């Protein structure tokens, strides 16, 4: 029996919708079977909480008296540079931005104690942030410099807009070399000393809707503790990777661009993050509801860790050089057990994505829907899927004449 989003929303409004998390649905389907559960359950909620570097915030600072045009000038928030190439007082703060005087990796491995992701956390926590800017001055914007404290509550708009979040699956990173390496996948000990993965697995949003049949442009979501939306497919969206029989990608595949009002978000779900020797970023909490429109969609949401496979990639050579090939594949049940086998060796495995927090997000979103505070949306447009032929292309370098 197929349902429509309109019918599900009617039940949500009446407080009668049956909502379970992507973890709870697994047992339920195993116990009662697909047919019965598809009738019973209306929504499955997902969640993920991990470092997501393509994240950032655009802010409208308001006009000072006399006015200053930051566009074409330079501006900093807590010494972290922001992009000013817009109109007079719109700026964009990226999660990986670093203060000009941060030593970076000059003393290796760099510490990267404070950057864009931390400024975002401070802003959303309601802390005062220091704005410092210089401009060239025009007839209509005569001022050439400004230094002031600002606070999120006083600004006109502060919008989280992340071009690429919630990767559908990711690599398992290892180090085959004989020295410690410092990567965006964490500190990797030499000679297969450890293996780091980064996905919420069976709770992860896009792994529960592998062909993007319900998640699309305009989908209402949990973002950073508040309501947000899917704005577009994310950058590097790559639906055409290898998949298992049940449709689950076996490598990094789909992504989403997301947007939401930072003023309503919480520092619990947008955390400034440091990778020693690599840089700073933001850890973002996202949860996406999946309407159970039919049995096929339900089956996808019942996917479990033992059915989701990831590729083991060497980050000492293969990754930096862009060489193809995987050292093998493992599933998330093996990864979450804390030990995997690579090249015949037992290797301790650990995650960068917090399963406990992902679970919390799925529960919060479930609560919002059960209370009738959160209605589901029909996508305005679907994300490119397998039939689009869309791939993730490398950069072709050409000689400059």
């Amino acid at each position: 029996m197929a349902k429509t989003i309109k019918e599900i929303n009617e039940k949500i409004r009446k407080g009668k919708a049956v909502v379970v998390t992507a973890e709870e649905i697994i047992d339920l389907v195993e116990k009662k079977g697909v047919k019965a559960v598809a009738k019973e359950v209306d929504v499955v909620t997902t969640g993920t909480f991990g470092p997501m570097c393509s994240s950032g915030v655009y802010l409208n600072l308001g006009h000072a008296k006399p006015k200053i045009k930051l566009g074409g000038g330079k501006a900093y928030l807590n010494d972290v540079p922001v992009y000013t190439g817009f109109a007079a007082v719109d700026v964009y703060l990226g999660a990986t931005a670093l203060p000009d005087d941060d030593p970076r990796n000059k003393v290796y491995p760099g510490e990267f104690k404070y950057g864009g992701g931390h400024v975002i956390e401070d802003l959303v926590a309601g802390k005062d942030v220091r704005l410092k800017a210089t401009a060239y001055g025009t007839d209509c914007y005569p001022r050439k410099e400004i230094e002031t404290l600002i606070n999120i509550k006083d600004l006109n708009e502060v919008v989280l807009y992340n071009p690429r979040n919630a990767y559908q699956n990711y690599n398992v990173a290892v180090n085959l070399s004989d020295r410690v390496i410092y990567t965006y996948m964490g500190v990797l000990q030499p000679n297969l000393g450890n293996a780091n993965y980064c996905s919420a697995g069976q709770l992860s949003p896009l792994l529960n809707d592998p062909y993007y049949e319900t998640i699309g442009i305009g989908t209402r979501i949990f973002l950073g503790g508040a309501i947000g939306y899917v704005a577009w497919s994310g950058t590097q969206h790559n639906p055409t990777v290898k998949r298992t029989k049940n449709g689950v990608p076996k490598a990094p595949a789909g992504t989403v661009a997301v947007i939401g009002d930072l003023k309503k978000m919480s520092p619990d779900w947008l955390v400034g993050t440091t990778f020693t020797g690599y840089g700073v970023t933001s850890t973002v909490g996202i949860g996406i509801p999946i309407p159970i429109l039919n049995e096929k969609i339900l089956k996808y949401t019942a996917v479990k860790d033992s059915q989701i496979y990831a590729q083991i990639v060497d980050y000492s050579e293969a990754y930096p050089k862009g060489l193809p090939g995987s050292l093998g594949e493992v599933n998330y049940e093996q990864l979450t057990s804390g030990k995997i086998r690579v090249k015949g060796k037992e290797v301790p495995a650990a995650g960068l994505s917090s399963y406990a927090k992902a679970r919390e997000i799925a529960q919060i979103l479930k609560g919002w829907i059960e209370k009738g505070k959160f209605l589901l949306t029909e996508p305005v447009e679907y994300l490119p899927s397998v039939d689009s032929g869309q791939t993730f292309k490398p950069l072709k370098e050409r000689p400059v004449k």
Partner: protein
Amino acid sequence: MAKKRIVLNFPHSLVDKPITYHLVKDYDLIINILRARVTPREEGLLVLEVTGDKRDLDRGIKFLKDLGIKIESLAQDIKWNEKKCTHCGVCLAICPTEAFIMDRKSRRISFDKERCIVCENCLRACPYKAIEILF
């Protein structure tokens, strides 16, 4: 038999003294060196697990104190800040003594101070700076 894990901070003037020799020879103690760091013009640091008769252990520690060595219990040195921890678990695979544990059911991290040897691997690995070292 008694066992203690201690952190010794000693001045530069004592760096070339065979301290552990005396603990073994004069006080009959079993010494396991967990970590050692001696830097020029700085204090030396030695992390020991010392095992022996309770009376010998106390006498050995008094001997160290009399030499001018500052002694702290190892357990106080690594601090896990649960509030900052996101329970991602990246510390699990990098800890050589399994001092960080993830509960299989709750998927939350806990820290067993007794197992920690203050190798500091986790300090660099934690993306949220939830682990601090207090010397």
